[in-house]
Each structure stands twice: as C-alpha cells, then as structure tokens.
C-alpha cells in the first residue's frame, strides 16, 4: 500500500479517528491531538502496516488505542487493574446531558466496547479485534457495560428529578 492510498484512508476516517482518540484519552483534547499525530506517524513511517484494506477502521482504531495507552502511561496516569474493572459509583451530581462524564463512570473495557458498538457502529467482533481479546470476553464487557450504563442513565435522571 503506497503513501497516497494510506493518506486517502486516513483522511476518510480522520473525524472518527479523532473522536476515538479523544474517547481513549478520557476526552482530553490536547492529548487526543498528540495521540492521533503519533498514530499517523507510526502508520506513514511503516511501523504499523495494513494488510487488509477492508479492515482499515479496525486497524486504525487499534493503533490509536495502543498509542493512547502509551501516552497515558508516559503521563503517569496509570489506572490500576481493579480500578479499570470496578464500576465508579456516582457520588456527585452529574448533568444528564454531560454524556462524557456519565460514560467515564463505566469501567475501561466496558466503556471501550460500548463506545465502539453504539457510537462508532462497529460489531462486537470488531471491538474484540481492536481490544485484542476473545469474542466471548468482548461480549461479556458489552453486556455488563450496557447494563451498567442503563443504570447510570436512570440514576442521573432520578437525581435530576429529585433535585427538582
């Protein structure tokens, strides 16, 4: 695959790639821009190679995710394993339109699978490929994430109702 073809693929997915980078960086714009730039560099310098053009989006998302993990690690924002699996309880009042804040209350893997499926219209199998986990595990994260997010949305709505 030559440089022009890669450029074309990256440009076609640029908006989605940026939004995904943002979601991988806890919605921090500046970090997302850096991550995206580094991911593009990896691709154009040939450090990451696309074998199957039909899987371009999955491949790009996977590179962005791993670049974001590296960047977060460098920044010292390491999340312990237990933190990444346990759901974060809603302690403070969250606005029902603050979608990013609500999503942040999901454990990391569940959040990623849910975002890929509902926001980026991917399949659970594609999510599993990006996360490099088995399909069964991805399905578990998907089911738990869905259940948890529904609970969160309901909780936020109740909080708002109660507040009124």
């Amino acid at each position: 695959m030559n440089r022009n073809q890669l450029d074309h693929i990256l440009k076609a997915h640029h908006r989605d790639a940026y939004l995904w980078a943002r979601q991988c960086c806890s919605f921090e714009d500046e970090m997302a821009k850096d991550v995206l730039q580094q991911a593009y560099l990896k691709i154009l310098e040939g450090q990451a190679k696309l074998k199957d053009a039909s899987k371009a989006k999955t491949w790009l998302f996977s590179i962005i995710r791993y670049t974001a993990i590296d960047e977060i690690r460098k920044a010292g924002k390491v999340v312990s394993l237990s933190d990444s699996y346990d759901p974060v309880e809603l302690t403070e009042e969250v606005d029902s339109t603050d979608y990013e804040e609500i999503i942040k209350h999901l454990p990391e893997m569940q959040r990623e699978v849910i975002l890929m499926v509902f926001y980026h219209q991917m399949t659970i199998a594609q999510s599993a490929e990006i996360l490099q986990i088995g399909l069964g595990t991805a399905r578990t994260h998907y089911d738990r994430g869905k259940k948890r997010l529904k609970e969160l949305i309901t909780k936020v709505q109740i909080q708002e109702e109660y507040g009124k």
Partner: protein
Amino acid sequence: MENNEQLERFFDQMKKQDEQIEIPAFPEVKIRKFSFWIPAGIAASMGFAFLFMQEPATVESAPPEIVIITLQEDENQNQHFTIEETTFLDTWESPTASLLTDY
C-alpha cells in the same frame, strides 16, 4: 430483540453534542524518509576532508653546508671578508695553495 432504545437515544444525543467539537485539520505528516542526498552529502564531505587533511609535503631546503669566507682586497688596498653560504662549491681552492706559490 434487544431493548437498546435508551442507549441508542443516549448516544444519538452524545453524537449531536459532539458535532460542536472542533476537529483538527488533517496533519501534514512529514515522514523521515531516507534520502539519497544524505549519504551523498556525507561522502562528498568526507572526500573534501580527506583532501584537505593531507598536508602537502614541505620541500625542505637543503641546509647550507658550505661557508665560503674570502678575504678580498679593494682598489684602496683595504682588505675585507665576504662570507657566503652555499650547498655547492663550483671552484675549490686549497686553503694552503697560496703557501706553495707565495713561499
């Protein structure tokens, strides 16, 4: 059939909100391509350096080995020495030759 209406509505609204996000322009990534000019430039520089580092062999002038001291008499009968240095002697006169003739 899964009942995902609540979640779909949530993400539809989230996407609508995200439309306000300013997407950065696609970056013009300059890749660090290995250029032909880099090794060519290095080779040329090394060639020049090699030429300049070779000092030209200095032609050492032969040390003057012969000193000719002559005692000359001018038209006023005054005698004075002339000293000259040379590497060769085209005529040689024995320093004692005068003894043979004068005495």
